[in-house]
């Protein structure tokens, strides 16, 4: 971590700005009340979901590069449900939209799981391919079937009023409602607890971790590793799909093509930095959420440094964390047979 900031500082110096000023701007703007903290938590929400998705798959020895595609499909499904069943009352429609996001994301995750378990196709490649297919499909359906006539922007029609979930500004004094932080943040925190319970307190979680730790031993112990792979990928995809709840139900109230700022890929960094543990994932997501928020200010208020600094930091952190795992004597990912 510290090393990544040093590398970042070198870049800032080379670009001709002061690292101290840039970093204090980055951190200060991310932690100010209410805007800084509100937006930091808002940006952290999708990263908690994708971080959990990647971490859960990691625990099964799988690398889910496909969170990006799964969250696109999940978000589109949430919007589809919110548009199609717009007439339903909130009590029925909101859970329906949740379910649509999770099922669609879960399906998009389960397909590579089945391809891996049944046909031996490596999940890294298939999930990358599924990402591109997801983006193409979602933009096709948005463009040709769910766009409002005459809308120049590639986005669907708005979802029904009753599908919207509340912004936290409604409940928290001092937090203005224009800040898009919404109930999905608490859903994300709940998901952390549930994933922890699932992985460490249930039979299925045990089987998934056993498959990840040592597939041969798991198989010998009577665990069907193929089934665990499909299960882990489906749950992972469902978690990624829940990103749609934050963006579609809590922020834009429609599916907007290209809404994801690479949340699925940042999820890999989040999981890695969080050591594939739900608590670590939540903390790492907060850090990267703060980066996303602070990056916008760095973009505006420094002379030379743009918000891409944040992505550079993220990449360098991934490199360092990936490289150092060897020095800790245990590998983050069980060595996978391709």
């Amino acid at each position: 971590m510290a090393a990544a900031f040093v590398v970042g500082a070198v870049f800032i110096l080379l670009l001709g700005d002061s690292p101290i000023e840039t970093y204090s701007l980055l951190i200060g703007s991310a932690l100010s009340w209410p805007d800084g903290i509100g937006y930091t938590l808002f940006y952290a929400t999708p990263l908690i979901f994708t971080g959990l998705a990647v971490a859960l798959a990691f625990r099964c020895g799988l690398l889910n590069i496909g969170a990006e595609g799964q969250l696109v499909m999940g978000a589109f499904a949430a919007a589809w449900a919110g548009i199609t069943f717009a007439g339903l009352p909130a009590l029925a429609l909101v859970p329906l939209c949740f379910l649509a996001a999770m099922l669609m994301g879960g399906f998009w995750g389960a397909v590579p799981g089945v391809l891996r378990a049944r046909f031996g196709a490596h999940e890294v490649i298939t999930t990358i391919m599924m990402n591109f297919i997801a983006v193409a499909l979602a933009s096709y359906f948005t463009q040709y079937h769910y766009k409002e006539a005459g809308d120049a922007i590639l986005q669907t029609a708005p979802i029904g009023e009753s599908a919207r979930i509340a912004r936290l500004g409604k409940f928290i004094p001092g937090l203005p409602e224009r800040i898009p932080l919404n109930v999905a943040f608490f859903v994300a925190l709940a998901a952390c607890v549930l994933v922890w319970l699932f992985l460490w307190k249930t039979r299925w979680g045990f089987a998934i971790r056993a498959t990840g730790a040592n597939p041969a031993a798991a198989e010998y112990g009577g665990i069907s590793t193929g089934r665990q792979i499909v299960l882990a990928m489906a749950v992972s995809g469902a978690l990624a799909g829940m990103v749609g709840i934050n963006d579609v139900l809590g922020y834009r109230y429609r599916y907007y093509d290209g809404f994801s700022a690479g949340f699925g890929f940042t999820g890999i960094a989040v999981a890695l930095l969080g050591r594939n543990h739900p608590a670590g994932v939540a903390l790492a997501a907060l850090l990267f959420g703060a980066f996303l928020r602070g990056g916008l200010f760095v973009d505006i208020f420094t002379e030379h440094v743009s918000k891409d600094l944040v992505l550079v930091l993220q990449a360098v952190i991934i490199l360092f964390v990936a490289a150092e795992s060897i020095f800790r004597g245990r590998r983050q990912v069980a060595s996978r047979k391709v």
Partner: protein
Amino acid sequence: MADIFKIALLFSTIRLATPLLLAALGGLYSERSGVINIGLEGMMLAGAFTAAVVTHFAGNPWIGLLAAIAVGAAVALVHAFVCIQCRADQVVTGTAINILFLALPALLSGAMFQSTGATPQIPQQDLMPVAPILLAFAMVPITWYVLSATPFGLRLRAVGENPEAADTAGIRVLAMRYKGVVISGMLAAIGGAYLSIGQSSLFTRNMTAGRGFIALAALIFGKWRPVQTMLACLLFGLAEAISIQMQGVVNIPVEFIQMVPYVLTIVVLAGFIGRSRPPRALGIPYEKR
């Protein structure tokens, strides 16, 4: 009329296949040595950006190309060091490389040219629209020959299939893998350079738009063999050419034609059309015992 259309389609296919082919052949050297290279996309971007910047300042595309190759090799060296020396997860490292070179060119061009990721336009006479195409297609028989008939190629394949046996036979496994990865970075960078100083005349943010991943798909579709990989690149180039030329002509939405490479890759990887078997030691770091 129909003939002109067909010839235009042919040329467009070759042009579009060229960056894919360079990157895919690059991936081939890395992966046959046993190192996964998801970072092709990032290496292409590094090459594209370097070529555009250096050509802009030097006024000579060859210097730009050489600089791109050097930077591609340097980036690959980072990937190689983290994967081979630190035995980090190769996919994770490659993903980091991709993120890094999505951001770094934008960061640098912002500081150098006060733009949001684009470099200045390069004048027409300073472009090299043909040389990379010839190079790409010349690399196919060269790669085939190197892999199948030279000691270097035999050793490269040996460390990718069975590093323990190769080590026992006196081959320096880690050094061979370094070479494989560095060659892949250089070729991917040429592929990227072709995009910025061949096909177009400047670098724009994320100008590869997933071509590194399509190259990877072509490599798998081509079963990690040079000639088949070239055919796969031509097929994917054709898909792109059709999707460009058909825009608004026929009633198939562009999105579906764009999906073709990805769907085909999944199909072939799942073994529905012949099995595509990766090098046996692909993705597994080697530890000397």
